[in-house]
């Protein structure tokens, strides 16, 4: 089944003022259930705007949005149900915290779903654990935490709703390298355990390559392409033209090729580069 489908989705900000901008321009895309999709695009390309349509926070100027096969603006669809189905974590989500304790803040979403206290308790603890927040933190005030911890609380707040589709807007931006890896690993394992569909907006090509299977590329509000990781990163010239980059290790592979050491055109991760290089080195010594 298709988890997410948009048809000719268009959104304009500030309609009727001199500041009118088309942030999302005629996007039609279909994302299958269970997919892990990386969303990339230059700053201001409309990524955040696009994903806010997927749980009905923004209503499109024209076009249609389907979540799990249902048109979310149909009269008999309750938009709140859609929001529990498609969980959205905002860019800089740490600013949404408001409760006295971390526990209560994580429980806000599940509570709105009308779950039983037991179920809420179970989910809060599970989500906190998944995000690497230990029990002792749960009783602290969210305002006393560090930036990275706050971010994890915010993520846990959405994960505790156990959405079928999890949409994340730069969840790892501004975290230290260990924190990034931890958060992204957790998201990845959430993906594997519960067969959810994940949309991950990120400026880091390395992260996209590491976790996503497919990549949705945005350019100036338009859909540039929606393809496999391999296909997308083999178009390094096109990506460069729209202000994007390929992973650093791919650049290194290109440079090596120019110097006469061909380790292949499909190098996106350090692991693969290492593998190929070792093969070449071994081959040389054998000969």
């Amino acid at each position: 089944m298709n988890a997410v489908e948009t048809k000719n989705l268009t959104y304009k900000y500030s309609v009727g003022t001199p500041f009118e901008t088309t942030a999302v321009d005629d996007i039609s895309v279909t994302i299958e259930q269970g997919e892990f999709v990386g969303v990339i695009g230059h700053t201001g390309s409309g990524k955040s705007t696009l994903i806010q349509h997927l749980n009905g926070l923004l209503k499109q100027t024209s076009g249609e949005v389907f979540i799990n096969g249902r048109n979310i603006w149909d009269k008999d669809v309750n938009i709140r149900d859609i929001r529990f189905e498609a969980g959205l974590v905002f860019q800089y989500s740490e600013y949404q915290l408001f409760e006295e304790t971390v526990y209560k803040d994580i429980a806000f979403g599940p509570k709105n779903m009308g779950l039983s206290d037991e179920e809420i308790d179970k989910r809060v603890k599970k989500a906190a654990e998944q995000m690497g927040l230990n029990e002792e933190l749960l009783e602290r005030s969210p305002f006393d935490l560090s930036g990275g911890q706050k971010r994890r609380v915010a993520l846990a707040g959405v994960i505790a709703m156990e959405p079928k589709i999890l949409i994340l807007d730069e969840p790892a931006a501004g975290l230290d390298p260990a924190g990034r890896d931890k958060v992204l690993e957790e998201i990845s394992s959430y993906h594997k355990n519960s067969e959810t569909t994940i949309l991950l907006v990120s400026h880091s090509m390395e992260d996209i390559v590491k976790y996503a299977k497919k990549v949705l590329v945005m350019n100036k509000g338009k859909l540039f392409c929606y393809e496999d990781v391999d296909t997308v990163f083999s178009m390094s010239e096109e990506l460069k033209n729209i202000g994007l980059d390929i992973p650093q290790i791919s650049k290194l592979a290109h440079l090596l090729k120019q110097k006469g050491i061909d380790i292949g055109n499909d190098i996106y991760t350090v692991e693969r580069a290492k593998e190929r290089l070792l093969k070449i080195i071994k081959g040389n010594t054998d000969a």
Partner: protein
Amino acid sequence: MLKDITIGQFFPGNSIIHRMDSRFKIVLDILYVVMLFVADNFISLTIAGIFILMAYAVSGIKPIMMVKSLKPLLPLILFTAILNLFFINGTEEPLFKWWVITIYWEGISTAIFMIVRIICLIIGMSLLTYTTSPIVLTDAIERLLSPLKKIKLPVHELAMMMTIALRFIPTLIEETDKIMSAQKARGAELDTGGLLKRAKALVPILIPLFVSAFKRANELAMAMECRCYKGGDGRTKLRQLKASGLDYMVSLLMITVFGFIIVDNMVF
């Protein structure tokens, strides 16, 4: 929605109105308000109305912005109109009579008069903020009030406070929008339920908003101190306000219209 609030919104441009000295604009705007209250018959009000419409035409601000500036004050306008409609007693026969409601011809005409007057007032004030950047505006206010420094009024500090407040209105609106979206994404219901429920629903919005507003204020204070801000004494201006021939011409036009209205009042 929140984004539709137009108070303090500025549309850059290069029209005559945009190029005028902001001190003149403020004084003329005040004069215009006085003019509206001096005008006591339809002819003078029409003149004042045409004047402001012409100013809009010259400024290049889209007419839709006039409507937008009126929207938040619509209840006030309607309230005034209704009061006048029902409570003005005329000298002639009532036009309409039912239970306690009696409507006289005078009531209708006064109601229309008041509506037009308030509309002119609001769009007149809006034109000032539409065509003047907030920074320049407060700068001008500081200049205009500077004689009050003699009586130890902290004019510069007041102007600085205003600049900062104006500067942060859009930021706070944007932030409120963002926080609202984030809470809605977690299933918060903001626009359903009774009064108490709605008031409670505001908590998840207001707390993060206050927290970040205080944080911003703190950071701003720190940044200002780092750049050695220490009040208005001995501070020079990057942008000097200068009156030009244009300003005197527009003032002359305004005074002429004002004179016209006074004469008109006396005749009719």
